[in-house]
């Protein structure tokens, strides 16, 4: 019952918040904050009771459309518990970060809560149809978050985001149905390990690849990300980068690899090539950006390239590294977007040349931005390094062509290039005219960032705090891949 509560509590919250009269924005705020905090508490309670040794736990299964084998089937294992925790945590932070939202607050917080329902749902659904329902459900609130509270080109960005992801996911639906026709059920766990015919696996993997790659995003399907990020309000950006990108990679790890191991091995070289290109391409474009948010958006493309590299490697190190990058990218990029948002609230500009000398004028903001940037470029001791290093190890260890791994390693250097050249201009140097009058972060804003800083350090220094959860599951998936 715990998992259903975690998913549907925010749904109830969303409905209640939507019904709150329009002028009582503060009431809506507190409801949203209360609901998300309780949800986080439930997830933490779940994590504490979670036994690392066993596989799927807290399972709930109720028949829904029996003759198609569709069932309301929830369950949590090592990987989904980490993502669920990230989703719950970032939701709380997103709500608190938009505390001063004035335009239509009730609708805004209702959308945030609805978003959390979708995100939590995806990570715990074990039935394809349920997974697809939550997968698509996430699109609607994000469309309205970007479309209504976004920046100048919000309409174009929101519809582009919606159509891009919908295009990918409908092909995924075809893949799901094809799998159903072959396996006779929509249950994900029952399907992993089935010896499906090779060519069939290949085509279904292609369908899933399209659906997930758009979400990750992998080069060349990524052009929706910068627009969506630049136009989305801060909280939406945090959730979009923090969690929604991970739904794609989670899809690969939960669905594509275990169920279609043979095809996964066949596709590995292609995915590695795309991943390496994404890393370098994302880094190149981040380097060329003039808008801070766009820079962080393109850095996400580069980081998610590492995740795909880890997934394509199919080795224990690679997959653990992939999940580590997913987790750390969620935390670090969440921090980056929060700080950029806070700076934007004060200076009303995101152009890199207008913002400089933060460390002088607002040392706390400057310091935290520098800290987040160093975590993002993969400085050892911070969580960014864990994933990237393990992915490189895994990629080198796997049968993937070495050239791509070298390119990915160069990607680490390029990450340092664009991050530090941003830090140079924005954090260091003399305060620019826009920065010279602003005040430093309030206690509320700092309180938002502290948990993320703590997480970055704990995972960065003691890797097992994260690997303890993911390693058992990864070992099983690797065994499956080796078997195919």
């Amino acid at each position, binding site marked *: 019952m715990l998992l259903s509560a975690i998913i549907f509590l925010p749904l109830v919250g969303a409905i209640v918040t*939507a019904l709150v009269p329009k002028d009582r924005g503060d009431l809506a705020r507190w409801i949203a904050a209360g609901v998300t905090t309780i949800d986080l508490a439930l997830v933490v309670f779940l994590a504490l009771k979670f036994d690392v040794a066993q596989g799927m736990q807290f399972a709930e299964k109720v028949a829904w459309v029996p003759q198609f084998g569709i069932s309301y089937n929830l369950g949590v294992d090592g990987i989904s518990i980490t993502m669920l925790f990230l989703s719950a945590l970032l939701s709380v932070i997103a709500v608190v970060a938009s505390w001063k939202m004035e335009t239509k607050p009730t609708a805004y917080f209702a959308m945030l809560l609805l978003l959390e329902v979708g995100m939590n749902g995806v990570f715990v659904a074990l039935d394809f149809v349920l997974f697809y329902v939550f997968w698509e459900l996430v699109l609607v609130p994000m469309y309205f978050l970007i479309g209504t509270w976004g920046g100048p080109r919000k309409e174009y960005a929101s519809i582009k985001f919606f159509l891009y992801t919908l295009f990918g996911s*409908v092909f995924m*639906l075809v893949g799901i149905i094809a799998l159903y026709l072959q396996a006779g059920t929509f249950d994900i766990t029952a399907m992993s390990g089935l010896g499906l015919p090779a060519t069939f696996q290949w085509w279904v993997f292609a369908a899933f690849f399209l659906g997930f790659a758009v979400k990750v995003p992998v080069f060349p399907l990524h052009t929706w990300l910068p627009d969506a990020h630049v136009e989305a309000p801060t909280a939406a950006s945090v959730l979009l980068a923090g969690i929604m990108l991970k739904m794609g990679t989670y899809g690969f790890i939960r669905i594509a690899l275990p169920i279609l191991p043979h095809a996964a091995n066949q596709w590995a070289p292609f995915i590695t090539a795309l991943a390496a290109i994404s890393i370098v391409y994302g880094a190149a474009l981040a380097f060329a950006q003039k808008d801070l948010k766009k820079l962080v958006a393109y850095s996400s493309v580069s980081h998610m390239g590492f995740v795909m590299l880890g997934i394509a490697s199919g080795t224990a190190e690679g997959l653990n590294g992939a999940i580590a990058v997913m987790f750390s990218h969620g935390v670090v990029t969440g921090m980056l977007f929060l700080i950029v948002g806070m700076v934007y609230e004060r200076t009303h500009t995101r152009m890199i040349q207008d913002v400089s000398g933060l460390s002088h004028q607002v040392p706390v903001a400057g310091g935290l931005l520098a800290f987040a940037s160093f975590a993002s470029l993969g400085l050892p001791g911070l969580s960014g390094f864990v994933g990237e290093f393990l992915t490189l190890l895994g990629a080198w260890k796997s049968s993937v062509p070495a050239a791509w791994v070298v390119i990915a390693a160069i990607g680490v250097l390029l990450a340092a290039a664009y991050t530090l050249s941003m830090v140079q201009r924005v954090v260091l140097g003399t305060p620019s005219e826009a920065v010279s009058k602003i005040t430093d972060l309030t206690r509320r804003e700092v309180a938002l960032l502290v948990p993320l800083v703590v997480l970055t350090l704990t995972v960065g220094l003691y890797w097992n705090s994260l690997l303890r959860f993911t390693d058992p599951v990864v070992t099983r998936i690797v065994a499956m891949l080796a078997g195919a």
Partner: protein
Amino acid sequence: MSALAWFIPEYLLLAGAFLALFAELIVRREGAGAAAGALFATLAALSAVAIGVRPVAFGGMLELDQVSVTVRVALAVLSAVYLLWLAGRGMGPERSREATALVLLATLGGMLMVASRDLMVLFISIELATMPAYVLMGYRRDDEHTLEGALKYFLLSMTTSLVMLYGFSFLFGIAGSTSFGVIAATPSAGLLGAFSAVFVFVGLFAKMSAAPFHYWAPDAYAGASPASVAFVSTVPKLAGAAVMVRLAVLLAPGVPALPTVFAVASLLSMLLGNLAAFPQSDVRRLMAYSGVAHTGYMLLALSAGSAAGNAAAIYYTIAYAVPSMAIMLLAAEEGTAVDDFAGLAARRPAAAGVAVVLLLSLVGVPPMVGMFGKLVLFTAALDAGRLALVLVAVVMSVVSAGYYFRILRAAFFAEGRTERVARALPASVAIMALTAVTLSLGVFTGPLLRWLTAAF
């Protein structure tokens, strides 16, 4: 109870129709006729549910199997909700009395169509269902566009139903009897059998506005008042779908190439419907083409030729009819141009929320019923090896998101007039009911589908 009693819903509708004509004389209020009609339709729906499945009656003329019962109930509910809305809003300048009578008669015709097992009864009930639709489409007597639209609908529909009748005559000729049982039993009659099937399905394609026989729909809808379009685009179409499924089952053994015909029609409808809808600025014309597209999806299910495919076709048509009627009713309240929806979120947030649920259901986004309809439909089609068509359907539903979202974008992101339209409780209740069904029907997909598949 005797066979006569099985058709209480029909009697109720008939009584309702006549009573509606004179209700205003008894009760002074304008909407009284529609309200009475709504009450009778609801009673008809309840009694239809109570009666349930029955064996053949009236010497093999009518039969109430699972499909007929489901569609009967759906038709009755839809017309009840429509009349409830009519009681709230009325037909604009015109009197709503005659409209109520026409609606009830058309629903009656629909019910008979679905239950008929004989060519003659089928022909008469089809005519009974369509003729009120002609009048409804031309309801605004003094508007030349409405009349022109109605005339186009009349002429094109009459031509195709004559072709269908011609087909019926051949079917009768081959089998020697008009009863479906005998027709099913006669061996296939080669080319003549194929021609007769073609003629029959031309008529049905026209009624369902499937390409390339859909020409009347865009012009007729664009001319007519949105209220009448709400009814004509859903109830007769649902009845037509049920008849098409039944005839497909009947004629398929004799004409092996029939599923391919459906596939071709489906492809044309999906492509033409979705693409032509893209540049539309009038909601009625947009929904006309959307109707063509959704008929395309329904035909895709039919082209699977399997029991699951047929059940999916019926289920999908219901899943299409409910939200479309609601959207057209909303358009009737807010205005027929897409720009009339501008600023809807500001002035009527609840209505805007409803619009989101309805449009997303038509696109096929979960958790609305549209997605389950498409899921079931694609499963049946893929099972029958229609991969190419399914991929076209999938891409086209993404394209459909494009034009449906133009309405949403107008509603949420554009500034429009701020004064609200007058509050009419029955109308809002009607739309809310339809939205509730759109949201919740998905959960009952399982039992509903098992019930429908039992009929084939």
